[in-house]
């Protein structure tokens, strides 16, 4: 998956890491610009920054870890350890320990002086090397060392071209994250979202840290509701483009750029959701009257109606096992979240708190779902446990929208507004860690977090 380049316009988006929040660590509370992290990330390219990530809030406990610059990485077009450090810090789960001032810095297990790291209160140390290959690519090796046990916890080797170095760094951060937390890392995943600049709409795909954004579709008409295919190779979305100039569901291949309308019926076509096997699409059509949910093959054939109500039924989301469908309906008088068998059948109301609960998306673990709940005049991201029905409101913005889980279920990406501009934010599923992704210009909205790379 690394080094991919999608067809269509390429834009030079870059991320600038402006700050991290070590508030627990330092006893501070908001927007603390950690000089430590800035120094650590001095190698991070910041030119022409367009998407900026800012961390607001941090995990309950942070794992102290040191990332030592890899041997010979100074000669690379892209520093690996700055990317790894930024990933780990951004997760809110790790506290980066100063790895500087060692001469020589350790690169191999036998070089690691555990007393030094114990003195710096690091519980793990990341070391590694880079070596050029005859074919122009690079051999990258890294090891994760346990300070207390004085042993290696993980070690992997990668071969990467210059263009693949960022991706390799994300893979290393994923391996570290998984080893130390038990959850899959999502640093090497991608996100999609829509940027609106004036009258221009762009569907973009970027790395999860906002880097490498590429426009895969540009239009003078609205684009909404992008949805990743489970294998990450295609995106379904709703485009209002000519000649129909109304909502039509398209599927676009990210590898070829080829696309075609899959739901273009009389009326409006919207809210595409992929089945977990990638073969079916749930969509909302109005060809028979009001907005109802239909199931179709991903090529647009075999359309069958799933809901049979005179109310609004929209925003379908499949459970990870493909058995259940969540959706929004106002059949009870106000918009609420319902669940029903994906094969069709009786719907059951799931939300009862408040008069406006919309936009459900399953947690990849299948045990909870995220949605938007209106509280007074505010719209916020909430999570509800499917078994206990307990609801936790995770955000406090005014107009939070379109939540979607990271594929490891630990973070939720959503759209919000700051200073009248649309930006993306992410919040951990326990509500503690918060991040903001801000573009230099335009409104950013309609985010969707892509799947784990295969």
């Amino acid at each position: 998956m690394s080094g991919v380049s999608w067809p269509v316009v390429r834009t030079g988006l870059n991320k600038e890491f402006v700050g991290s929040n070590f508030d627990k660590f330092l006893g501070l509370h908001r927007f603390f610009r950690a000089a430590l992290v800035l120094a650590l990330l001095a190698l991070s390219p910041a030119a022409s920054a367009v998407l900026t990530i800012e961390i607001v809030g941090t995990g309950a406990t942070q794992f102290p870890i040191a990332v030592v610059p890899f041997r010979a990485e100074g000669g690379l077009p892209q520093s690996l350890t700055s990317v790894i450090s930024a990933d780990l810090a951004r997760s809110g789960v790790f506290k980066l320990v100063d790895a500087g001032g060692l001469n020589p810095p350790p690169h191999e297990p036998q070089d690691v002086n555990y007393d030094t790291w114990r003195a710096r209160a690091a519980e793990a140390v990341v070391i590694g090397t880079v070596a050029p290959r005859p074919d122009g690519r690079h051999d990258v090796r890294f090891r994760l060392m346990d300070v207390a046990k004085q042993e290696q916890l993980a070690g992997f080797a990668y071969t990467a071209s210059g263009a693949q170095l960022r991706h390799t760094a994300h893979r290393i951060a994923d391996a570290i994250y998984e080893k130390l937390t038990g959850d899959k890392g999502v640093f090497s995943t991608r996100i999609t979202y829509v940027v609106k600049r004036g009258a221009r709409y762009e569907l973009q795909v970027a790395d999860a840290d906002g880097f490498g954004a590429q426009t895969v579709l540009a239009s003078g008409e609205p684009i909404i509701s992008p949805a990743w295919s489970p294998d990450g190779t295609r995106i379904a979305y709703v485009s209002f483009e000519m000649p129909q100039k109304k909502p039509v569901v398209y599927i676009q291949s990210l590898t070829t750029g080829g696309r075609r309308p899959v739901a273009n019926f009389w009326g409006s076509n919207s809210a595409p959701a992929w089945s977990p096997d990638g073969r079916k699409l749930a969509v909302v059509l109005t060809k028979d009257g009001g907005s109802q949910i239909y199931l179709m093959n991903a090529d647009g054939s075999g359309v069958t109606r799933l809901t049979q109500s005179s109310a609004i039924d929209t925003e379908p989301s499949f459970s990870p096992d493909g058995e259940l469908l969540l959706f929004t309906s106002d059949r009870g008088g106000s918009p609420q979240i319902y669940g029903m068998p994906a094969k069709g059948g009786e719907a059951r109301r799931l939300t009862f708190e408040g008069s406006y609960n919309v936009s459900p998306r399953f947690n990849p673990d299948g045990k909870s779902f995220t949605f938007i709940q209106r509280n007074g005049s505010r719209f916020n991201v909430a999570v509800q446990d499917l078994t206990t029905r307990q609801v936790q409101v995770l955000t406090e913005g005014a107009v939070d929208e379109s939540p979607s889980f990271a594929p490891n279920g630990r973070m939720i990406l959503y759209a919000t507004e700051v200073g009248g501009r649309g930006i993306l934010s992410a919040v951990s599923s326990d509500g503690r860690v918060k991040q903001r992704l801000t573009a230099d210009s335009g409104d950013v909205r309609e985010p969707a977090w892509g799947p784990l790379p295969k």
Partner: protein
Amino acid sequence: MKRLSIHLISIVLAGMLAACGTTPTKEQEGASVEDRTKAPAGEAGAPKPRPGPRVATKPLVDKPLAANPLKDPGNILSKRSVYFDYDSDLIKDEFKPVVTAHAKYLQQHPNAKMRIEGNADERGSREYNIALGQRRANAVRQMMQLLGAQALQIETVSFGEEKPKCTGHEESCWSQNRRGDIAYQGE
């Protein structure tokens, strides 16, 4: 006299050639890029490139040309918007004459077709707002059908909150965006 005619013909020909050479090409800006500017009511829709010279002749008629009732500002048929209350698809009394007039027009012109475009204010989920706009468009269609319009004459679509008439963030704006717009085919 003959020479003058030849001069005239060559001038006209030159003009035609020049016109051909400057045919607008803005529609070729790429497959997915569209002109977003909405054609104002009463104006022609997407300009189609016309083959041949842009000259047309018309026979002189005795009586004055009847104005197109759909475009006549003095005609109720030139009114194209129905406004709704928050979270409502109820057609208010003040808009019933407009809906009735268009229903009657459709009944009297069985070949006429229209699209009703439903809209919603910006609050809440974009997809739910698509559904709310759709419901408003459907409510207008339903009333027109009750008054004699045929189902296949009216397509209802929704723009949800995506095409606000007013872009502010307060009720004075929102009330303008909870709206159904009527557009006849070919407009």
